[in-house]
């Protein structure tokens, strides 16, 4: 193998699994260390810069970081990264003075359609640069789906108000209750750029027999959640069936439990493991005595002269074809009818752009989705950008934020007369963490604690009040324990070939057997000759150039604890622990010297 190019920003970025997995590339270990030090406001600001909504995401994020967390490969459970983010938000001081000041107007006007996370992120990035940002939303308050679709027992309004408020406070104009009905009309208003962050606002229908007749008791999940959120709906029948296996279904069933549903069931086509809902959301539903029934496909709504009485399901089983694809085929067992008073349909969301006229220069593909460049987020109309669910269909908040940052960068470059396909490289800072012979500026004593549970409100009380937040969040002590579980993956093991005397001290001390000194070879061959078996080929090998004996140093990054013992036991300083702080380039970052092409 060729010697690893550690100067390429991606190499060490990839080692920080959580940051690499986060769509917004939040510097996770850095903020967790700050939490451990009790510097909650500093931790919050790091989050605020990267993911804009730390308090909201700390309660609702889909957490792509956690399955990626190295700790999950070392022991059973990853670090509770998401809930530590909430800790930063919960315990911070007033941070208003740390937010950017509204900048003098640069004369350019941006229209943002939809007041959800994507649009607000674009506004957050552009307003401090002097752009006049106008956010349009059909709802009276900002927040989009964060406000309408996420139940209050998971995300209180106060958190949404606070964090949307920080953005609107940057001088962003918010036009609530103002639905954009025509792209053509909007284009005619001569904005310098338009960003569409209108989400995936339409709940998918379930068109099976009985749907029309029993319509009075059949509700579309996201619409129903929004009505609950606005207080238009405050009760539901005693027996409720929720159709669908995603996170919306979990929100629906738990909401139903709080509005009078006593016998609430979730019925899913697929098996339990394949459900789209996050494992912890399924867990929360089960905890609230909501059974999840699997492998049942709804075939008809049963009604008595228009009064819903139940749903008939066909029983299926999973079969896998030669390519490993799953097919649900009838199991041959008789159909099953489950009685109910109300049904909530949460079988998916769809995009809808009836307001974008065909002659706006915005092309759509065969799935009726706008053609959007996945790096720059520009549509076929160079002045119109898309982001969030509106760009590539339903994902989650953190993706919307990431899209928002990238779109804002594109808009800023376009309006500065620069090529939007040139993407400035992230800002990388590297610094040795050595303080003394065996002292490091980070806590390298690895905690063996298991993942700490987030305290929950008593179930009886929680189920009585739809606005009572179920998760209480870590207290300071639990947060400290959980923060210590972080392996500081951003403190990198950096190897200097010229200093190494091949004494084997690092090999001997490494608790995880990451390091091997051996003859060089192809990657597949090297992976066979490591001191400990290579379990995850997607994890990089760090290979040195040739050493004095002709061998090379090979480090499997997979389960490195970043404990720094290799560097402590190294007599010549060939190993050093260096912190890699990687910050994504946002609109207005000061002139980075290098860039890469978006193509």
């Amino acid at each position, binding site marked *: 193998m060729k010697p690893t190019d550690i100067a390429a920003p991606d190499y060490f970025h990839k080692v920080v699994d959580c940051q690499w997995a986060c769509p917004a590339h939040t510097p996770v270990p850095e903020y967790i260390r700050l939490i451990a030090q009790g510097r909650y406001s500093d931790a919050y600001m790091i989050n605020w810069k990267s993911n804009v909504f730390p308090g909201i995401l700390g309660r609702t994020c889909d957490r792509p970081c956690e399955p990626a967390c190295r700790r999950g490969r070392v022991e059973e459970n990853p670090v509770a990264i998401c809930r530590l983010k909430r800790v930063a938000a919960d315990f911070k001081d007033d941070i208003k003075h740390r937010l950017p000041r509204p900048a003098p107007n640069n004369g350019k006007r941006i229209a943002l359609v939809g007041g959800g996370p994507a649009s607000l992120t674009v506004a957050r990035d552009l307003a401090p640069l002097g752009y006049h940002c106008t956010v349009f939303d059909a709802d009276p308050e900002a927040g989009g789906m964060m406000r309408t679709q996420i139940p209050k027992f998971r995300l209180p309004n106060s958190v949404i108000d606070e964090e949307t408020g920080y953005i609107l406070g940057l001088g962003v104009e918010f036009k609530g209750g103002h639905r954009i009905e025509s792209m053509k009309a909007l284009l005619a208003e001569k904005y310098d750029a338009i960003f569409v962050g209108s989400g995936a606002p339409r709940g998918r229908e379930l068109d099976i027999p009985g749907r029309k007749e029993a319509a009075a008791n059949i509700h579309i999940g996201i619409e129903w959640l929004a009505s609950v959120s606005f207080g238009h709906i405050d009760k539901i029948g005693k027996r409720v069936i929720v159709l669908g296996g995603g996170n919306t279904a979990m929100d629906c069933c738990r909401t139903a439990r709080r509005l009078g549903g006593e016998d609430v069931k979730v019925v899913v086509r697929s098996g339990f493991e394949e459900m789209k809902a996050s494992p912890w959301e399924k867990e929360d539903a089960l905890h609230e005595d909501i059974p999840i029934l699997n492998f049942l496909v709804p075939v008809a709504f049963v009604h008595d002269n228009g009064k819903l009485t139940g749903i008939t399901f066909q029983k299926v089983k999973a079969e896998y074809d030669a390519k490993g694809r799953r097919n649900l085929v009838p199991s041959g067992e008789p159909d099953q009818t489950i009685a109910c008073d109300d049904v909530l349909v949460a079988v998916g969301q769809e995009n809808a752009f009836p307001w974008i006229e065909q002659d706006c220069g915005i092309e759509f593909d065969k799935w009726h989705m706008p053609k959007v460049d996945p790096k720059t987020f520009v549509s076929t109309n160079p002045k119109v950008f898309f982001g969030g669910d509106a760009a590539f269909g339903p994902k989650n908040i953190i993706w919307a934020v990431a899209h928002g940052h990238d779109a804002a960068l594109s808009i800023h470059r376009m309006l500065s007369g620069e090529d939007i396909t040139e993407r400035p490289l992230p800002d990388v800072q590297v610094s040795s963490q050595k303080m003394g012979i065996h002292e490091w500026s980070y806590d390298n004593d690895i905690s063996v604690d298991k993942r700490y549970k987030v305290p929950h409100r008593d179930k009886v009380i929680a189920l009585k009040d739809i606005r009572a937040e179920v998760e209480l969040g870590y207290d300071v002590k639990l947060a400290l324990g959980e923060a210590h579980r972080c392996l500081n993956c951003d403190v990198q093991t950096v190897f200097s070939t010229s200093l190494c*005397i091949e004494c084997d001290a690092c090999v001997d001390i490494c*608790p995880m057997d990451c390091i091997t000194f051996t003859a060089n070879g192809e990657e597949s061959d090297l992976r066979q000759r490591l001191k400990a078996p290579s379990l995850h080929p997607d994890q990089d090998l760090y290979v040195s150039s040739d050493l004095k004996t002709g061998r090379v140093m090979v480090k499997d990054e997979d389960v490195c604890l970043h404990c720094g013992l290799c560097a402590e036991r190294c007599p010549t300083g060939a190993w050093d622990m260096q912190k890699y702080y990687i910050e994504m380039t946002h609109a207005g970052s000061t002139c980075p010297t290098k860039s890469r092409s978006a193509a």
Partner: protein
Amino acid sequence: MTYIAKPKFHHPGLKPNELGYTRRDYEGKISTLCAGCGHDSITASIIEACYELSIEPHRVAKISGIGCSSKTPDYFLGNSHGFNSVHGRMPSVLTGANLANRDLIYLGVSGDGDSASIGFGQFAHSIRRGVNMTYIVENNGVYGLTKGQFSATADRGSKSKKGVTNTDNAIDLVAIALQLGATFVARSFSGDKTQLVPLIAAAIRHKGASFIDVISPCIAFNNHAGSTKSFDYVREHNDAVNRLDVLVGRDPIAVDYAPGTVQVVEQHDGSKVALRKIDADYDPHDRLGAQTFLARHAARGQIVTGLLYVDPEAEDLHEHLNTVETPLNTLEADTLCPGSAVLDKINASLR
């Protein structure tokens, strides 16, 4: 020196041995020696060998004297018996322990100061008597704990860190061990675990006095140009006569080397060692040949490593003394002291 303990987590792919232990279970406390010390590699090799042999930790007694090397038993086999004795007195303590309980595996760990200076006589007599043990000398040629004076194994003409030339002749412990009748004699290098680990494993399985001289560079005081015990010097002058490629239990050995290049040595307990010859003419069963070979190569400044001599049919001290099979420490009082009638009988037989 490291302040934090080695984290308890281990690689998820570590395989347990026959006893269900991973290699990590054979570790001791974290080393307090200088960073990069060769002794730590020897520690790691002992751990590896004991793991591979599936040794029950409580069946091992590790005994040492004083010095950097003699600190190391604290760093391996944390669940074994240990005795950190007076300077140079490891061999006597080990001999005594062995006589009292012949059922344990004895690991004597010593250094060049401990064995070639203050304990030279002790070393000699334990070898001479054929105590069943594995005697490992962690040999760095300097007194590391007192800031790097030459030890008795420092080669004549080698230079100290400050540039002073050693004018005394060196003691070659391997040559002495051969002369005194050790039945398993090897030399190795802390920087070559592929050679060292099987040597330690074979030595542990050998019945009789096994002696391994391991050259172990002292990073702090003896790893400079002019030293003959530095990493660079040993790597350049290492003349390995053979390698133990396969060390197996009682299973038949299957090796695919060209005929004549592999020599299978069967030990007392039925275990077998496959030796891959590097020097075709070298015969590890020839004590006299080994001595001349060593002397000849030493004169050329070469460091001969590998298994230099082995007597698979060796006897040990217990056989020489015709002691009982049962360890003395488990004999009951009436066996140990059979009473005045028996004493009278013995006395009568001597009249």
